């Protein structure tokens, strides 16, 4: 009797979430899957059941190149955000002593995100451009004679923007996990003769793994789904899967976009499924 009650109450409380996800997640996914089998004309889509979209997708070398580029971006961004995010979180968790200070520093990190991303991306141009602040400064310091061209509109700038946008998504979960490490463990390590670096490698790193995994999930999926950053920061010169999809959408090729989307979703889910094998998100929060 009580047992049933619990379920019913649970369902009631979970209902809003379930409804939102049903309407705005499950239904769209189903729709995308269905539409991926539809056909398209220049201006409209029509119901059908055909594999043309997939055939074309898998038949085109571009697909592989672009998926590869997407994974490459995801991987490099992951590696960079991990190193930077880990270090920042480490500093916050182990070197900043008061909780108030930690919160303050964290908030300071979030402020830039209140300025629209589009504005921020536009502002990279005067910063990194041929005559931008970075080049001017380097030239005035005498580090370089010629402006560095690769600062902007290159893979470098794309990755820079990714790191800029997503490092915080790495910092938060890692910080969260680090805060839960018993400080006595670090003292125990020191007591056992571990140097600072050894403590880091043998104690902190293994214990921070769950946070790293969660951060990884965030960063990887965000990068894999992005299309606007790549377009802006590469000066439209590079493509990732998101851009393929958005190009298709722009040209009203919904079925083709849907097919690409399905493959992208599958790829992301596989990556996530693999990552989830290493960490129980619910337990680690």
């Amino acid at each position, binding site marked *: 009797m009580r047992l049933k009650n619990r379920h019913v109450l649970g369902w009631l409380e979970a209902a809003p979430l379930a409804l939102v996800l049903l309407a705005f997640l499950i239904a769209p996914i189903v729709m995308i899957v269905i539409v991926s089998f539809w056909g398209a004309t220049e201006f409209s889509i029509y119901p059908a059941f055909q594999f043309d979209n997939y055939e074309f997708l898998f038949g085109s070398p571009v697909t592989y190149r672009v998926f590869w580029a997407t994974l490459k971006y995801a991987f490099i961004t992951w590696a960079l955000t991990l190193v930077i995010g880990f270090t920042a979180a480490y500093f916050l968790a182990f070197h900043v002593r008061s909780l108030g200070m930690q919160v303050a520093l964290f908030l300071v990190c979030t402020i830039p995100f209140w300025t629209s991303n589009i504005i921020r991306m536009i502002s990279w141009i005067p910063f990194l451009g041929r005559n931008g602040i970075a080049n001017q400064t380097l030239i005035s310091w005498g580090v370089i004679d010629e402006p560095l061209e690769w600062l902007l509109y290159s893979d470098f700038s794309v990755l820079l923007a990714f790191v800029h946008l997503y490092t915080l998504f790495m910092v938060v979960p890692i910080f969260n996990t680090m805060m839960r490490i*018993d400080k*006595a463990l670090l*003292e*125990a390590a*020191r007591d056992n*003769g571990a140097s600072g670096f050894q403590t880091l490698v*043998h*104690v902190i790193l293994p*214990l921070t793994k769950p946070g790293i995994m969660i951060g990884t999930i965030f960063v990887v999926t965000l990068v894999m789904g992005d299309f606007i950053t790549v377009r802006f920061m590469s000066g439209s010169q590079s493509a990732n899967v998101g851009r393929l999809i958005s190009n298709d959408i722009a040209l009203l090729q919904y079925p083709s976009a849907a097919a690409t989307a399905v493959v992208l979703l599958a790829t992301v889910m596989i990556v996530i499924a693999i990552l989830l094998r290493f960490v129980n998100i619910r337990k680690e929060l």
Partner: protein
Amino acid sequence: MRTGYDLELVHLTKRYGDTVAVRDLNHVFTPGSYVCLLGPSGCGKSSTLRMIAGHEDVSEGSIVLDGQDVSTLPPAQRGTAMMFQNYALFPHLSVRDNVAFSLRMKGEDKTKRHARANELLELVDMTHLADRLPAQLSGGQQQRVALARALVTQPKVLLLDEPLSALDPFLRIRMRSELKKLQRELGITFLHVTHGQDEALALADEIVVMNDAVIEQAGPARDVWAAPRTEFVARFIGGHNVIALPSGKATVRADAVTLSDAGTPATVTAVEYQGASVAVTATTESGEEILALIPEAAFFGSPKSPGDAVRLSWDEGRLHRLTA
């Protein structure tokens, strides 16, 4: 059996901002003995221990171990080892790897360090669980692993910060006899922080009672019990009554107080059964609370309840005058 090493505190002081946690301690610990650092919460026990271990900087003064000032050395080079309150076992390492951790840090190869770890696990009788993770052990088992890990560095002094407080009372009593046994076998100094006076009495060769950042009294357990130097010590170690005499304060042991026909009139305020004896608390007319520990048989010969009027008496010879 190894010989003990001298551990000495010289004008040891610890400040946190404005708070003085430890004030000018001077003490030489008896080498090779089981020392208990006893005191109420916040009196500076942990701070003292952690300074000795090297986990806290010394504000002033120094720590001398075996003739060498170690107060600026890193923890691992001091010849001390610490066992933490919740054991601080590395949760991601197996029992064996936990014990072998310090050897791994030194770069010893696997076979060697495993061999040595096994030796220590043997010592604490944990060989059969060497491959488990700490989370798979009971509290008592965890404690033994923590001990083995602390001992693997062959410390001259083992520092223990409330090592028994995480255990339930049953286990606590069992583990404390094991600690004591091990100390006797190894012959090194154990410096054990606790705020339980029964624990301190049961374990210690030497008791150091701290209060308010200073040492109130130090000495063999029995001496402290028999002759508390201050009212604080007398009250804190329990089983003592402090009574005001015209000539100053004195203590009398609770088991020296009897309920009789003659003596100071008082009213019983509480009766606590303790098995072998019964603790009767009574308030005298002057408002002093006096505890009398009456053997069970005697008490139930003429039982008392709260509210009853009694007369308390004691042998004058058992009065102990407080020196401070």
